[in-house]
């Protein structure tokens, strides 16, 4: 059997996804035995010209990590889509915009001010350096996920994708037995299914944040008041974060039966809030708990904001939020 041709590409990414590929330890040797890596900017030095030189569909599979933030990200996503048979959204940013999707709540000027400081230090899109014309790719008006730009065949979720999930993809790849398009390489059930903590389904009586309070290591984090995204989040990670005494942040995206992960979590939490038997006399106590929330979008939509209504900063003409 001819060796498969694979590619690994990063767009707007931190590099964590590339590292996560090596978490499979010696399994990487099976991958290298079964496949040639033709594209991997993080580890090798192929040029875009090499990629352009391949025939359409010449690559078998490309693992694409990172979000679409610049014109270069968009262009490469489109080019890679032409050159590969299967395209994998690898990691939260490619899947749903990821954590950096929250940057859509800031304007380009605010982002540049934070990253580069005062305006004189901002990069110019067109400059002349040592008699050479230099064009930087355009900073797109909004960050988005891979599937808004091109068709995606598989999703490998996680920030970064955890070992069991990456391993499942590599096993399918090495066996030459890829599943139907649309497959998400993770559990169809939620993180709670894999979590060993004790759940009493108590009421949420207060809202706690993990940097302010140390969680009890045995009890359900949500029962304790920590906003653990487990109920709305796809499993497959073996609940590593709750096992390390940290609430799930929802990096694997929604379970198979949910479309909007943040909305599902918001429903869940709203249903649990309260101090006792629901009734009119409880409304004030409930309002007090509701007032303890800080940053709802950043909590419930931490990795999926870019794919929902929270993908923009809005401007009311006459409203109170103007």
């Amino acid at each position, binding site marked *: 059997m001819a060796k498969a041709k694979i590619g690994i590409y990063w767009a707007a990414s931190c590099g964590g996804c590339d590292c996560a590929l090596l978490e499979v330890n010696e399994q990487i040797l099976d991958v290298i035995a079964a496949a040639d890596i033709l594209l991997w900017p993080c580890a090798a030095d192929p040029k875009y010209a090499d990629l352009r030189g391949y025939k359409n569909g010449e690559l078998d599979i490309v693992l694409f990590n990172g979000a*679409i933030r610049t014109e270069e990200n*968009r262009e490469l996503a489109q080019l890679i889509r032409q050159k590969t048979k299967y395209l994998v959204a690898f990691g939260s940013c490619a899947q749903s915009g990821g954590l950096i999707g929250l940057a859509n*709540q800031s304007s380009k000027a605010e982002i540049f001010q934070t990253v580069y400081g005062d305006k004189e230090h901002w990069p110019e899109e067109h400059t002349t350096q040592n008699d050479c014309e230099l064009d930087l790719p355009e900073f*797109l*008006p*909004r960050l*988005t996920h891979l599937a*808004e*730009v091109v068709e995606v065949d598989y999703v490998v979720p996680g920030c970064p994708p955890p070992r069991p999930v990456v391993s499942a993809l590599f096993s399918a790849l090495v066996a030459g037995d890829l599943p139907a398009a649309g497959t998400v390489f993770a559990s169809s059930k939620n993180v709670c299914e894999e979590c060993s903590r004790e759940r009493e389904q108590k009421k949420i009586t207060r809202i706690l944040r993990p940097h302010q309070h140390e969680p009890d290591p045995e009890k359900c984090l949500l029962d304790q008041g920590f906003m653990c995204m487990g109920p709305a989040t796809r499993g497959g990670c073996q609940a590593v974060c709750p096992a390390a005494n940290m609430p799930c942040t929802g990096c694997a995206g929604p379970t198979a039966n949910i*479309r*909007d992960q*943040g*909305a*599902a979590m*918001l*429903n869940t*939490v*709203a*249903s649990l*809030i*309260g101090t006792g038997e*629901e*009734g*009119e006399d*409880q*409304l004030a106590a*409930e*309002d007090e708990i*509701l007032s303890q*929330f800080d*940053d*709802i*979008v950043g909590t*419930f939509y931490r990795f999926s904001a870019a794919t*929902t*209504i*929270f993908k*923009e*900063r*809005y*401007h*009311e*003409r*006459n*409203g*109170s*939020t103007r």
Partner: protein
Amino acid sequence: MDNTNERFEPRIVAFLCRWCSYAGADLAGVSRLTYPPNIVPIRVNCSGRVDAEMVLGALEKGADGVLIGGCHPGDCHYVSGNYKTRRRIALLKQALTEVGIDPDRVHLEWISASEGIKFQATMTSYTERIRELGPSPVREVKEPIHG
């Protein structure tokens, strides 16, 4: 809607509980009470059925306002559905405020089956409130990224 000579006609989606608010709408109808035609009523079995995704979905698809009508506290046919929706809407309003959407674009009101007049008054005042706010900023045409 930038044409200032033309009055802005808001599009409002109303999720109405079948036991109270929808019956209140029926009473308003048979009582021949008039109210603005800007409301698109959707009957649900309980205001507790209205999950956050339905409200956000309505806004995303172009509603200028979303109204949820449920039973008064203590009156819920399913005992506590209205309490759950009350907390849910409170969190939703907070989330919308965080991204710059006016929280009044989502509104919860208790309207019982006998309150045809309250139904009329609520639909009238809410339509006016949304007219005042203007078109939803979510509706503004944005540059597509896939271009």
